[in-house]
């Protein structure tokens, strides 16, 4: 058994209406302490209104080697971008 505490990824919502954003990671023995540590490490300067913690091992990530099949096919498909439409001025900012 490892003596290291597990690694937790920390997500903080800066203000109401915004999404949680990944801000970094830290070590903690359990989820409750991870929230407390996140509060002390990442919200000291009033950065957040909500904290999510997730143990890093529960995150499934893509590997850099899969870059080709995963992402490159979309590079050549410009028609997927909605840039061929004229947006009337009255619509304003979208």
């Amino acid at each position, binding site marked *: 058994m490892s003596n290291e505490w597990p690694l937790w990824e920390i997500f903080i919502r800066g203000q109401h209406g915004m999404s949680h954003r990944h801000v970094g990671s*830290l070590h903690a*023995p359990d989820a409750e*302490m991870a929230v*407390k540590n996140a509060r*002390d*490490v990442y919200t*000291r300067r009033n950065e957040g209104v909500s904290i999510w913690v997730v143990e890093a091992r529960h995150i499934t990530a893509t590997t850099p080697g899969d870059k080709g099949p995963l992402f490159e096919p979309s590079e050549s498909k410009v028609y997927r971008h909605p840039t061929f439409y004229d947006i009337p001025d009255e619509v304003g900012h979208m």
Partner: protein
Amino acid sequence: MTDVSQDALFEFLLRMGDNTLILGHRVSEWCGHAPILEEDIALANTALDLLGQTQLWLGYAAEVQGEGKTADDLAFLRDVWDFRNLLLVELPNGDFARTIMRQFLFDAFNSVVLGHLQTSGDENIRAIAEKASKEAAYHVERSADTVVGLGDGTRESHDRMQGALDFLWPYVGEMFASDDNDRALAEAGIAPDPAGLRDEYNALIKRVITKGTLTMPDSDFAHKGGRTGSMHTEHLGHILCEMQWLQRAYPGCKW
């Protein structure tokens, strides 16, 4: 509600402010030395919170004293016999277990007292208590969790936590050792009589200590002399040496 003398009020404010000043200084000694980075930051945050509360308590104390002094004057230019903190908070940090247990025993006391002070008849005290109690609520939650985690942890962490509790227990009784000053403030509706807070305090800490698989000591013996200033431990002088030397060596120095 009766009027209370400025001297009695001043004494009370020193007792509040000196507790947070001395404990804040003690906890800050861990900065850069805690066993793990996250704890290091958390302890430093706690120390800063305590110093923030000190500024409020001693700031008001200086105002009540009416000699044109500031919170800094009270913190840096008084000698040992003028300090009114509990003996508990001036004790050396010891190992991490003792630091955490001392923190929990104080946080629990601070949160109980601040809860009652939010209905104080003195509006300045009420305002300070309202602000400080949010910090105190977080402090006690954090230190309680750590007491449980280490108490109900490995054999070694359990034994160290029990050792810390047994060592610190004789310093808990002083929190509730009321004197005439406390009774005068209680009668005036300014602060609760500490003697009346013991049951609430015991209920809070017993819950945590039991959950941490630790055993409450059954002795009632209590070291006293800190909150009355009649006899501090030898440790307070050493803290003041370190904390005050700059103002003593370079009077009035600012940066």
